[in-house]
């Protein structure tokens, strides 16, 4: 196997977010998180539940560019109404994107600028408010920069640790922001005050580089390990089975 690309390192880093989750619905948003779920299910987390991105729960992964009518091993039926039930029942771990994220994991995908008249309207809050107070949530950021990692987000879509504490015990009882995976590093909130820290660095990246790309001070970052390297089996599965036409590279380039 040739050495792993950055996209492949990110796939494995995202997959690791679901390690230990067992038999819950793993919901990825984006190409690399989708590959990550399927890789996790094929390797170290075989009981994960995942879908085709629409309403079908799959018993075997499909390629990233499979046409809609490609043959599928259908395990169960998972329309959006069922997904909301799963969210509110808590048997789910989602990895969403983030246009902005702050040190306590508040995430914004709704708009930039004042909500009443935004400079840029984005998607809307989508499922982020409900996801973050009901079950573990992680984020995938393809371009780690101070524009994304900000002091304060413009519209709290996914709720972070500081805001959820203020919102009371009903809001916080099932709240967990598990990981933030970027093109530079893996970050988490496993600090006394749940502020963001570097969990691991991708090969060749330094703490200083990650800090420079982050618009707030990261919590103590001594002796940060390197992100787990893809195994040969990881690379074979991603390259030959899950993403033969390298959609993963386009997501990182953008």
């Amino acid at each position, binding site marked *: 196997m040739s050495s792993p690309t950055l996209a492949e390192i990110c796939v494995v880093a995202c997959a690791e977010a679901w390690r230990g989750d067992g038999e819950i619905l793993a919901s990825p948003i984006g190409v690399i998180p989708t590959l990550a779920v399927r890789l996790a299910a094929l390797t170290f987390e075989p009981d994960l539940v995942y879908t085709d991105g629409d309403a079908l729960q799959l018993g075997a992964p499909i390629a990233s560019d499979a046409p*809609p009518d490609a043959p599928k091993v259908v395990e169960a039926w998972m329309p959006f109404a069922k997904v909301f039930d799963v969210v509110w029942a808590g048997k789910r771990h989602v990895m969403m994107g983030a246009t902005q994220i702050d040190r306590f994991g508040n995430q914004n995908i709704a708009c930039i600028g004042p909500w009443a*008249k935004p400079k840029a309207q984005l998607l809307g*809050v989508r499922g982020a408010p409900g996801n973050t107070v009901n079950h573990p949530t992680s984020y995938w950021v393809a371009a780690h920069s101070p524009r994304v990692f900000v002091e304060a987000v413009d519209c*709290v879509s*996914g709720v972070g640790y500081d805001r959820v504490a203020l*919102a*009371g015990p*009903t809001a916080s009882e099932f709240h967990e922001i598990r990981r933030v995976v970027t093109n530079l590093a893996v970050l988490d909130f496993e600090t006394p005050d749940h502020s963001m820290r570097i969990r691991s660095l991708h090969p060749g990246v330094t703490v200083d580089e990650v800090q420079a790309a982050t618009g707030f001070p990261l919590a103590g970052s001594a002796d940060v390990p390197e992100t787990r390297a893809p195994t040969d089996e990881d690379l074979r599965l991603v390259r030959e089975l899950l993403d033969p036409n390298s959609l993963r590279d386009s997501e990182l380039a953008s």
Partner: protein
Amino acid sequence: MTDKRVTEADVVGELRDGMTIGIGGWGSRRKPMSIVREILRSDLRDLTVVSYGGPDVGMLCAAGKVRKAVYGFVSLDSIPLEPHFRAARQNATIEAMELDEGMLQLGLRAAAWRVSFLPCRAGLGSAIRENNPELKTVVSPYDGQELLAMPALRLDVALLHANRADARGDAQYLGADWYFDDLFAMAADRTFVSCEQVVEPGGFASAGPPESIRISRMWTHGVVEAPFGAHFTHCVPDYPRDEVLQREYAASAKDDDAWKVFRAKWIDIPEPEYRKLAAASLS
């Protein structure tokens, strides 16, 4: 037996300025676009639109029909950001009630069940609270749990698009997801269902099993036979999304002239002509 078949023009004739209109489907999927186009051609205004939004919301915003949008998202799926909706929000030409996706369905369910709210955890701690100060919490009388009280989203009218319907208003969904069309129907005073094909009584069996008939006629007030009625959104398995036309639509948000060109070509034309264009565009 009541024959509820009507035309798009009949449906729009039942609508009034200022009404609250729920639109079924999800994003750029199985939207009742032929009825939306008829609204665009009308002089209706000041509508409140409740939707898991796609080009339905975008087009109504572009045509100046919307006073307020109630949504969890507005997206074209393969084009994540809906450009006409973005323009309306960025120019503050519409009011917005932006909700968590799950809260939106709960509001419809509350309306369907004729209760003024339903409680949920979703929304707590998020900017939804600041952006919608009318939303309140409720404390459980059993254990003190403080939950968000999602208010009922009562609709004057629901507009849906199904794969098949019968003339009495039963509607069949042949794709893997019927989204929340059933809740929209139950939350509305009146529901109009457009469909790819009106079938004879009992005619659903050849297309799908009984559980694909998701809407009972007791919720339906009118049925529009509208082949390609969801185009350019997808209406699987009858047809996929027309990505080429969707890109043309998205590009029409560039300026007023581009929108006028799109309107002239794809909206301000008779439906039979639209169907011919849609069939050609999909082939």
